[in-house]
């Protein structure tokens, strides 16, 4: 999976405007986006060269995905429903495709919200 490189590029770009020297960049990875942490870290280390982030360390945290059904109110996790490899791969690029592939395990509705664990968030510590 090479989306990690696009993501690393986005993270480095988004931090270009940070004024203070950055020591630590915390990256929260949503389970739904299925990012390969090792590849992401490798890409970040490569891409940070020659930028303000040269001296920064990157820390990754995984946020498990949780869903809430808009029809019946049930709360569920990704592990409660079966997801094929092709579907996981598609959600890796656009997590909203979950609405095409997943259904509420209680009532079968495709109308649900992703409560947590959707995308990627970045926080910096100076």
């Amino acid at each position, binding site marked *: *999976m*090479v*989306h990690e*490189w*696009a*993501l690393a*590029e*986005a*993270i480095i*770009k*988004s*931090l*270009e405007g940070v004024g203070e020297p950055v020591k630590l960049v915390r990256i929260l990875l949503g389970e739904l986006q299925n990012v390969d942490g090792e590849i992401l870290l490798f890409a970040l280390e490569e891409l940070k060269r020659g930028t303000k982030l040269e001296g920064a360390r990157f820390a990754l945290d995984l946020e498990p995905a949780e869903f809430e059904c808009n029809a019946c109110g049930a709360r569920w996790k990704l592990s409660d429903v079966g997801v094929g490899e092709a579907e996981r791969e*598609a959600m890796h*690029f*656009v*997590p*909203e*495709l979950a*609405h*095409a*592939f997943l259904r509420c395990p209680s009532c079968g509705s*495709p*109308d649900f*919200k*992703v409560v947590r664990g*959707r*995308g*990627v*968030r*970045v*926080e*910096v510590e100076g």
Partner: protein
Amino acid sequence: MDPRLAVIPERLKRVSRIAVFCSGKGGVGKTLLASLAALIAARRGLRVGLLDLDFNGPSSHVVLGAAPAPREERGLVPPEVAGVKLMSLALFAGDAPLPLRGADATNALIELLAVTRWGELDLLVVDAPPGTGDELLDALRLLKRVEAVVVTTPSKLSLAVVARLVRLLKGAGTPVLGLVENMGRGEAEATAREWGVKYLGWVPYDPAVESALGDPEKLLATEAAAKLEGALAAAGILKAREASPPPP
């Protein structure tokens, strides 16, 4: 901090022009005209992309015909059909329904714009969804340099809604390249004048289009394509922009 927003301008850096085909009203033929416009521009030798933003009912891939999945290469490289680089959620979701609420549609758009590597394009054609909801507003906000091609039918039902869209676009400061009348014979020309919008021309209802869907060669041979080509020329979007002169 949302890292995706920072990379969108980078992804669009080498795209010269972005034309959004919009109408405010459903069923007027936006998808057909947007897809056909992309095919016509590609035949003229332009480097063209087509972005389908009708997330709930994507269908530009039906107009263009079978498209392979996007290729992964530090993001997603759109597949090319008849010289047009196509990006649509249908390339991933297939025929499955994709019920997206507002915030989800916004996120899907941001994600698509952040991962798609269009490369060098003379023209990116955007097929907007009906209405003036999240996808259109987000497209105007995130794509920034968009120009609008407004599509209508001659029906009062369409014109009443399209009038609102034109006011919205003008209020938002989005350049309106003009109005294309679909399935008509020039009836909407006077209305365009009233609105202070350039009338680009009309495209007739052409029964040959239905059987040509999915076959770019056949589509380009229809009367609809010939008339649309005139309208696109009037909009000035069939020429590649001159490259900027090299710095002294």
